[in-house]
């Protein structure tokens, strides 16, 4: 049934004139129709009501492939289904991108520990940008208040809540470091997490089985689990989403910082770097000798967290 729908879609796409803008809309309508049709088959009754349409879409979603094995048509189809599901379930018009990486781009990050004042604007921006669960207060970015004489965030205080900056303290941010040699990728039994060509370590949420082995394998506590269904107030949901990024997660899957893939693939800074009022966060293309991040690596003394583990994080700390 599923493949039948795809065939119809393919036929129809081939017959379409080369008008890019209408092609996508057409696909959207087609697969909604197809989904409704299959829903009718599944439920064995009147197609067209939102409930049956929803069931049909979920049915097709359940049997879809791993993201990396999908053809472009299949990616478009699942994006259409997900957008339609968001409309049906939450009444919101999300736009889910499946934009791929740019060539000759490898993302890297540098954090200035002598500039950060611990304001945590980055944390707040990240929560809003990435539709993080408000109920359990999930945060990808964490800031540690540090005493002089130490450089290991695990010795600092990650739960401070008082006026900052405090005299004689400094602040250190941690998040997923997008390791080149990431232990989490190696651990995943289903290849649901991998490193994209531009260096971002991503998760196919629909492929993750929720075993949490990656969480145990991460030496930086860079991953979070959805213990329940994440809750975000409807009017706070960020509608600009990416399949591998900030689209709504579901219960029982892992999630993590994606360097705001929905922003960075479009040339924007990640939300944390954009929100930082002190300029402590430097983000850019490691393969571009003229980029800011390369200037930092070349001209500053940099270090990485737990370098001895050989994970090769693409996240460096530096001082003025």
């Amino acid at each position, binding site marked *: 049934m599923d493949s039948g729908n795809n065939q119809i879609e393919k036929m129809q796409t081939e017959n379409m004139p080369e008008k890019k803008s209408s092609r996508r809309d057409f696909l959207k309508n087609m697969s909604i129709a197809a989904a409704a049709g299959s829903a009718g088959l599944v439920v064995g009754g009147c197609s067209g009501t939102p409930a049956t349409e929803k069931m049909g879409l979920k049915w097709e979603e359940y049997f879809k492939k791993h993201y990396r094995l999908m053809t472009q048509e299949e990616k478009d189809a699942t994006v259409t289904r997900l957008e339609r599901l968001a409309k049906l379930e939450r009444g919101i018009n999300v736009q889910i991108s499946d934009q791929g990486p740019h060539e000759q781009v490898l993302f890297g990050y540098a954090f200035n520990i002598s500039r950060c004042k611990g304001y945590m604007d980055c944390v707040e921006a990240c929560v809003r940008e990435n539709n993080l669960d408000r109920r359990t207060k999930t945060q990808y970015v964490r800031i540690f208040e540090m005493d002089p004489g130490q450089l290991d*965030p695990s010795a600092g205080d990650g739960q401070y809540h008082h006026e900052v900056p405090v005299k004689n303290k400094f602040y250190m941010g941690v998040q997923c470091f997008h390791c080149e040699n990431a232990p989490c990728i190696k651990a995943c039994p289903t290849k649901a997490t991998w490193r994209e060509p531009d260096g971002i370590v991503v998760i196919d949420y629909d492929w993750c*089985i929720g075993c949490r082995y990656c969480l145990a394998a991460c030496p930086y506590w860079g991953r979070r689990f959805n213990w329940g269904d994440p809750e975000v107030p409807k009017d706070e949901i960020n509608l600009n989403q990416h399949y591998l990024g900030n689209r709504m997660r579901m219960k029982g899957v892992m999630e993590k910082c994606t360097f705001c893939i929905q922003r960075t693939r479009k040339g924007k800074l990640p939300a944390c770097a954009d929100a930082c009022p002190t300029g402590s966060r430097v983000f850019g293309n490691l393969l571009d000798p003229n980029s800011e991040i390369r200037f930092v690596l070349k001209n500053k003394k940099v270090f990485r967290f737990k370098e001895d583990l050989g994970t090769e994080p693409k996240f460096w700390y530096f001082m003025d």
Partner: protein
Amino acid sequence: MTTTSRKGFAAFISDCTRWALSGGVGYKIYLAALFALIGAGIYAYSQQFRYGLRITGMSDIVSWGLYISNFTFFVGVAAAAVMLILPAYILKDKDLHKVVIIGEGVAVGALIMCLLFITVDMGGPLKVWHMIPGIGLFNWPSSILTWDVLVLNGYLALNSLVPLYILYCNYHGRNPVGWKYKPFVFLSIFWAVSIHMTTAFLYQGLPARPFWNNPLLGPRFLASAFAAGPAVIMMVLIVIKESTHYPIEINIFNKLKKIIVVAAIINLVMLFSEVFKEFYTFTHHSLSAQYLFFGLEGHDSLVPWIWTAISLNILGTMLFAFDPTKCNPKYLMVAAISLFTGIWIEKGFGLIIPGFVPSPLGEVVDYSPSILEIMITVGILAVGAFVVTMLIKPALVIEMRLREQKTGSQ
């Protein structure tokens, strides 16, 4: 018995089912109690399925809890069947050969528990097909978890098919053909070691968790398994001896006792070695051990557990080592329960939780399982007990019949 003349696989299955379910009032009560526990577990799991794992006590810091603790422990119990298979088949030990089928039944029950624990621990149990090679993606050989899936299922197949074949032959009153099953028996010996080593590698291979990242973990898993597993088997044997007419000679207890003592002592030596390493030169990597044994930053929920476990460990070992009663079943039961409980706590809770505390970012939280989590766990334990009962009861009937046939014909 009236069914001696019946032949074929269908008859075998129906007879086994009948034998498994028939019994006295006490047996009926026992089964009813198991069903009640399983039912409660299913209810609790339905809640977890609906609301997600947030109904458990786990968090992003302690992300594995009671389920994975029990999984780890029962892999050991499953592997321990080898301590009966090895002497029975390779050393041709006549006594242990008589009870090897019971060991294999316990292994199957333990393995089913392991697979259930893994399943209930998963966030997306319906997506498990993503792991099946061909239609899903199987990250082999990179992920140790995929190795574990392979060895556990393989061991389950070996340990169910071999006894099934032997029982099937015995049911029809003939001896099993050696070449048809013995290669698999020998394979299962190596396989038993591999399931427990692989499960140890699951933890041992993570530099993110210094408490686990320890080359002694695998060997110690084996040693503790070869003490706790035979202790479980001994408990089952004592129950069988006390509640059925199946003859179990004192010699068998004696041999099991020796196995347990050797393994338990090796386990204690390794435990001492680990404790020495953690505390002689106290490093950052010893914080987990400090949390486990003494508490850290005011969090000390595991401290009473681990000291209870170590006390029970030593007590059980001592009871087995200096047995003044010369294998009195009641005495052995106390010793076995003591050792079993000690290792259960130490290798379950005491191994998994401190691996997560403090977190890689140095944060200390306590974990305590929720009521629903405990209900699910108890439900799975009941499933295990039920499976073991269902396997062993018909097996004993078949073996008894075969023995009667043999003595009758002589």
